[in-house]
């Protein structure tokens, strides 16, 4: 078989290396999750947003989530603030 393998190695099927490369590109892009381009202003933005919100409502540091997602060419900045219950809100003025 070795002889024929050499003759016919240019089969119409994709080589296993090409398959490996494609799989890697997909998984690596996914796992990076914007690692290389994750903006470094994100932590500062989160802090300042929190300060603004705190002027009006008392929220805890852990109650604010800033998330940057990429969907194709479109980047989505998601801001999620959990407001405290009514009675807790009364506590601060």
């Amino acid at each position, binding site marked *: 078989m*070795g*002889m024929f393998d*050499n003759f016919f*190695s240019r089969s119409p099927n994709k*080589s*296993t*290396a*090409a398959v*490996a*490369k494609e*799989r*890697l*590109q997909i*998984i*690596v892009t996914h*796992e*990076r999750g914007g*690692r*290389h381009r994750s903006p470094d202003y994100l932590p500062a933005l989160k802090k300042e947003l929190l300060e603004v919100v705190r002027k009006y409502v008392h929220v805890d540091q852990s109650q604010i989530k800033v998330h940057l997602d990429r969907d194709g060419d479109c980047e989505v900045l998601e801001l999620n603030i959990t407001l405290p219950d009514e009675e807790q809100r009364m506590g601060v003025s």
Partner: protein
Amino acid sequence: MATVIVVTSGKGGVGKTTTSASFATGLAQRGYRTVVIDFDVGLRNLDLIMGCERRVVYDFINVINNEANLNQALIRDKRVENLYILPASQTRDKEALTKDGVERVLNELRQNFEYVVCDSPAGIERGALMALYFADEALVVTNPEVSSVRDSDRILGILASRSRRAEQGDIPVKEHLVLARYAPERAHRGDMLSVDDVLEILGISLLGVIPESPAVLQSSNAGVPVILEDDSDAGSAYGDLVDRFLGKSLPHRFVTVQKKGLLQRLFGGS
């Protein structure tokens, strides 16, 4: 001021210790005072690869815990001048690697050496994190194989976010790719990721390609860093790698297929 270089990969068995041993030996051969540190606490092997396993008295953890000083723990290589080995502890657990302790030892080594090479353990646990935390540059050892490439990418992410340089907003750790166990014929046939494939995925600069070679096992059997076998393919590839690291511009060898005759092509196995 010394340069601290981590040799890392994420995945085990790709050639970190082989690379650490040869890289450090090569730097020392070229006249630089070099120390190579084993960070694999509990599973030390650098001593075996360097052939100094019977000369270990004190280790890295002893120095961190002030049970010995550096002069007592450092092993001077008998073949190459300017080369020292700091072995890992075989008995302690990895928790002994404290950030403060590692920093203190590295600072002391920086005073006396020009290059400090940190041989990282596999994984992304404490030992690996400590090995890369203080690094100025990184050799990322990768095999042309899916799990190794993925793990290397993960390590690149950690270098970019959890090293001291990243935490302090300093100039990022300089990353170099070392592609080991490469077989050009198999890549040419489409059975193995090629150098270009790996470079495209990882996106860092290529420092060297080390061919798959029987010389690596043979030299480890003997406890001789393969770079000292300079008539071997892997040995000369490491030699080129060190020269490139020091700024020489050399073409990459062992990346293309050696031309075979017609008969060889028809009947030459594989």
